[in-house]
């Protein structure tokens, strides 16, 4: 009896020892890092999706995120980065409001020896770009080809017969707003579409509605409106004003940044086409940053990652987007996220990450997660 008991106790101790060692090994592999993330806001559909994806990715890798809103104000952006550093974050990610603020942010991070990534933005100014890319602690950025986004949407309006359009945009100086705008203008020039008017600094639905009504009053020949961005509210306001003034079908609309009424807008043919769903952009720079801080940098120099936003022009696309990208299973699972880090996958490279980002699309998510989403 005593012998049996001692064997059982020994077995239990061995099992416990093995489990503890395994846990210790896992803990060693997944050290907890803290990532600071500064975005324009945390209360619109786009920023909420970004934070959700970012936090999920961090959690998958045993890490934490501190997110803060900066209202796209340079002073607030600098303050957020300084605050993150004083809180001891391991890396900072930010969506800069303008190229001009980036050198200051880079300097702060360089002085503190904290890696920095930019999300949703590329740097247009060549001098600033040279300075930033020569920084030891600048890891990289991710952005969409916003020129192409604007161009494609502008072309859609032209293809649908629009000849006289207006543009509703958000902030002057914002790289994304400017690049999308330039893309639209390129398409309009190429396809002989006249831009009758433009209104910037439009960020809310009621302001967009007022601007749209003003366009309708001033330009009876108006047949298209390009809503360049602003997080969903401006598009809804524009569409509501068009309906209230009985111009549905007579004034076509394209939009960027999916809002909460995406499916409705397409179902009722209130919007001709939309691009958006690119809230995974910061995720790719997170992967860059995580590999960097875990001592497994994917590259010896700063890297630019380019991705394509989703284009949605049908109700079916919209349903698939909601089901495959916004449901309980995010566009990348925990396993997929771990495989993008050298900690869990020694074969991971920067080229593979860039390929993953470039291939991101609705079809890509549906193919990868077949069987995971019901």
């Amino acid at each position, binding site marked *: 009896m005593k012998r049996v008991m001692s064997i059982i106790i020994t077995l239990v101790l061995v099992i416990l020892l093995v489990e503890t060692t395994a846990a210790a090994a896992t803990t060693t592999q997944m050290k907890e890092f803290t990532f600071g993330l500064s975005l324009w*806001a*945390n*209360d*619109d*559909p786009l920023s*909420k999706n970004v934070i959700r994806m970012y936090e999920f990715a961090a959690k998958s890798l045993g890490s934490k995120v501190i997110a803060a*809103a900066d*209202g796209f104000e340079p002073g*607030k952006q600098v303050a957020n980065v300084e605050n993150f550093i004083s809180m001891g974050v391991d890396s900072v990610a930010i969506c800069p409001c303008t190229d001009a603020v980036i050198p200051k942010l880079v300097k702060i991070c360089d002085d503190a020896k904290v890696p920095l990534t930019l999300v949703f933005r590329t740097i247009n100014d060549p001098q600033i770009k040279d300075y930033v890319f020569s920084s030891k602690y600048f890891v990289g950025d991710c952005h969409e080809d916003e020129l192409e986004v604007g161009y494609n949407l502008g072309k859609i309006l032209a293809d649908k017969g629009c000849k006289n359009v207006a543009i509703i945009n958000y902030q*002057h100086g914002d790289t994304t707003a400017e690049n999308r705008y330039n893309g639209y203008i390129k398409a309009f020039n190429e396809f002989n579409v006249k831009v009758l*008017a*433009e*209104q*910037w*600094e*439009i*960020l*809310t*639905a*009621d302001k*967009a*509605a*007022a*601007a749209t*009504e*003003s*366009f*309708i*009053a*001033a*330009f*009876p020949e108006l047949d298209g409106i390009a809503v360049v961005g602003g*997080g*969903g*509210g401006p598009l*809804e*306001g524009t*569409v*509501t*004003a068009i*309906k*209230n003034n009985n111009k549905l079908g007579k004034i076509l609309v394209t939009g960027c940044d999916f*809002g*909460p*009424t995406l499916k*409705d807008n397409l179902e009722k043919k209130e919007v001709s086409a939309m691009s958006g769903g690119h809230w995974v952009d910061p995720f790719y720079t997170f992967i860059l940053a995580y590999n960097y801080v875990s001592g497994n940098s994917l590259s010896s120099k700063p890297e630019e990652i380019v991705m394509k936003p989703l284009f949605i022009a049908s109700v079916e696309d919209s349903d698939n987007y909601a089901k495959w990208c916004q449901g309980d299973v995010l566009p990348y699972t925990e396993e997929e996220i771990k495989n993008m880090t050298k900690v869990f996958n020694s074969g991971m490279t920067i080229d593979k990450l860039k390929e993953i980002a470039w291939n991101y699309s609705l079809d890509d998510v549906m193919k990868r997660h077949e069987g995971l989403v019901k």
Partner: protein
Amino acid sequence: MSKKFKNIIIVLLIPIFVYLIFFAIQPERFGTIQGIYIMFKQSFIPSILSWGLIYILTLGLYDFSIGSILVLASIIGADLGLKFGYFGLIFGCIVVAILLEGLNGIIFMTLKIPSLITTIGLLLIYETLGNLYKGGGGIVLSDKLHIFGRSPYNIILGIIAFIISFILFNNTRFGIYVKSVGSSEMISKSVGINVTKIKILGFLICGLFVGIASIITVSYGGIVMPQTGMKSLMRVFTPLMGCFFGIALKKQINIIIGIFIGEFTLTMISIGLITMGIDISFQQVVTGLFLIIIVSITAFNQRNIIIVK
């Protein structure tokens, strides 16, 4: 010509003058019948807010939270509207706005901190509440509930708001007490006016108008998103300018009417600049300059009257 009639003409000359300037620059685009109608419609939302804010200003107070209250009331009203139809929308917007303004009044009177500081502090709280409500994504108002975003229903609601404000401000004891307290609290107290009660009522009445403005705002845009980082403060300035316009011209015309004429003129300037293709930043410069000019001219005239007397 009677003095009253002369004063009305003087006041009306302001929007007519602005109209003529823009019409001269863009005759083919500005000032069409449809255009004037749209300007008239668009003047109502800021006017309704001004008609409520004027009670606060007349009392010698400030309320910078009306923008955040409008947003929060619109969000909750829209949510109730989706559940209970128009009753939910109207009830939600008005009751929430009145309750929050009532809270402003009670906190202000209890803590005795300047209203400017109190309302800015509360603005931050209301913005956060809007962001927390139902996860913060804002509420999309169903198409079937957009009636107050369309004419003539938004105009009807605007006219109702005008009548209520006009009668309350000019033809009730409450209106007299508001002016009395604003003029001199000490004298008002000495004649038996309950100053605390009047101030709190002033906030509540402002809440009624903020509630009405919320109904039209959410119906007009179709969605109201929460605003944080004091962005809702921007919503206060246009109604504030309308109030200043009304106050500047109160010797010539009733303040409530003057407010609407001011907002209509400001809307006309905004649309006039749009037809000229001028960016919104420059629009704000022109609007600000216009206000300074009007208030300066009026203040100058009043000084001259005093000197002559």
